[in-house]
């Protein structure tokens, strides 16, 4: 079984919610991101989204846009993010999801990116500005390497749209089932928390529609909001994704040591709240 699917089976068996942590790789440096990723895993992250910084991140709020600018200035590129992924993979078996905008993938070439991602130990790609109707070439390239492509749903996705997403994102042969990313609100990353309890209920409906695990993201900035977004122990979402709040902790820390402590403390808080 694929690593990412295996992890969801284990979590379900243990009756636990998944904690997926997003890191903008290269912020503050490529080397530091590798350490911060391992710190997050040690503190209880079940899964990592490794972010490829992009110059024009239209789906991100100011915090992640600043993180991306710092990362680009620090020399982060899609290939260097994959180098960091392979260093993390050498130390851990947690599922790794490469998070990116589409342009860096298109410019590098989809088949090449899929090949490099597999070699780096990545399990799936999440491309935030690639609706499933446009994703066929990437899905094919990824399936050929045994990688998944994660679909997103939003509060604006009406029933017919959800069905269209489901059809267009059904995992291809050789690809993992992975998960569905459910956006908790209309807005950019880092916006104020909305009705996360409702997001958890929506996620439950989404799991039935897709018959795949569903993670809720956007607006989760504390243990309490993580718990809300995850929902009931026996229902709700399969887990949560936390990104902006962690980037803010990293941004505010004064030194490398402090960044590592901040990541450890915050991820531990999220873990305790979910368990």
């Amino acid at each position, binding site marked *: 079984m694929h690593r990412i699917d295996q992890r969801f089976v284990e979590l379900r068996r243990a009756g636990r919610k998944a904690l997926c942590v997003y890191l903008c790789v290269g912020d503050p440096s490529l080397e530091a991101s590798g350490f911060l990723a391992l710190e997050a895993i040690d503190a209880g992250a079940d899964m990592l989204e490794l972010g490829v910084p*992009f*110059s*024009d*991140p*239209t*789906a991100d*709020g100011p915090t992640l*846009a600043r993180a991306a600018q710092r990362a*680009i200035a620090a020399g982060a*590129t*899609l*290939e260097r993010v994959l180098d960091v992924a392979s260093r993390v993979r050498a130390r851990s078996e947690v599922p790794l999801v490469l998070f990116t*905008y*589409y*342009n*860096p*993938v*298109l*410019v*590098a070439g989809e088949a090449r990116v899929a090949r490099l991602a597999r070699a780096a130990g990545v399990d799936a790609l999440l491309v*935030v*500005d*690639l*609706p499933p*109707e*446009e994703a066929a070439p990437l899905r094919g390239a990824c399936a050929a390497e045994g990688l998944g492509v994660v*679909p*997103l*749903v*939003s*509060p*604006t*996705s*009406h029933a017919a*749209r959800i069905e269209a*997403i489901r059809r267009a994102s059904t995992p291809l042969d050789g690809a993992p089932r992975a998960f569905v990313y459910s*956006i908790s609100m*209309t*807005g*950019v990353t880092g*916006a104020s928390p909305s009705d996360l309890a409702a997001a958890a209920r929506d996620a439950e409906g989404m799991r039935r529609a897709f018959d795949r695990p569903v993670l809720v993201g956007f607006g989760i900035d504390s243990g309490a909001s993580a718990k809300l977004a995850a929902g009931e122990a026996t229902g709700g979402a399969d887990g949560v994704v936390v990104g902006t709040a962690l980037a803010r902790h990293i941004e505010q820390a004064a030194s490398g040591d402090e960044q590592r402590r901040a990541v450890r403390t915050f991820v531990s808080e999220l873990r305790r709240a979910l368990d």
Partner: protein
Amino acid sequence: MLFAGYFGPFGGRFVAETLVPALEELDRARQEVLPTQAFQAELHGLLQSYVGRPTPLTEAKRFARRIDPDGEAIAELLLKREDLCHTGAHKINNALGQLLLAKAMGKTRIIAETGAGQHGVATATAAALLGLSCEVYQGALDMERQAPNVARMRLLGARVVPVASGSRTLKDAMNEALRDWVTNVRTTYYCVGSAAGPHPYPTLVASLQRIIGDEARASCLDRGALPDAVVACVGGGSNAIGIFKAFEGDSSVSLYGVEAAGLGLETDKHAATLSRGRVGVLHGAKTYVLCDDAGQVIEAHSVSAGLDYPGVGPEHARLRDTGRATYVSATDTEALDAAREVARAEGIVIALETAHAFAALGPIARREAEARGRPARILVCLSGRGDKDLDTITAYGGGK
């Protein structure tokens, strides 16, 4: 296969999932409301009584002699006078059309992005006329260099939101408008200013701007013949696609788009996306983009805030690759010189965007005249007037 939203391999809809249903809704309205007789009657009524359409063709005899080094008239120049539209540029055609559509869709809040401010002014104007609230995102640098338009937008009741990120120009204003739209998508209509962005915007904007070409083509035929060449400046490319569309099927007519070469194509300070870009995805469409090997978008440069954009409408990408249109470029200096020459020869102060099209006329006229063995008949889209650029032109010495 050419399917909805694609021009050959270009176009599409590359946006966050939250926006897909809004784009579907807009596309339905475009197909169901736009063609109705009631909508067209209202739009064309306003274009006549409010905008001042049809705009005339003006023959530019004195400037025609100046573009030839020997002072010979190597071309007959016809100017399509979009500068005579209310608000001073072709942008009003698109803004009125989209805001009428927004109103039909029940939207009450309008957002827009602007570079030079002409699209912002046009949107603020249409919003005032139709009683809609309006916010315009503009790069902080562009707000400085286009201060008169900022004042006009505010006078018209729009809120102008400065964008301080990135290059502080059009690209960043568009990023910010998209973020606003993702957040307020249920109540808000995003009025895109060029034939760029995700489907259906390139098609919608081109259909609203096509009136430029339709009128010009009819006027040329009234004067006796189709032009040999049609020339227009290209940033996002809405005035160019608007005039090109009417002539695309006329195989005898050459189409020329003129991009901003900034400090020169050999430098990294230009906005010549079709000449120096590569295929990428920016602001929702697959098209030519100025970006580096890692896929990061490169900041464009042009003396003209309206051309300072690292992408281009996807239909131009197809016209370039199929060879139906030819894309050339003019530098900042050439455009500033052309603006001064046109003012002195014809008594018309043209926008710096438009000045790029005029700056390229010499080589185009020679090429067309040689190919045809006679002076060429050239139609130029005079997309807008230059009041907003007076400070820039004066600083350069154009007022001397």
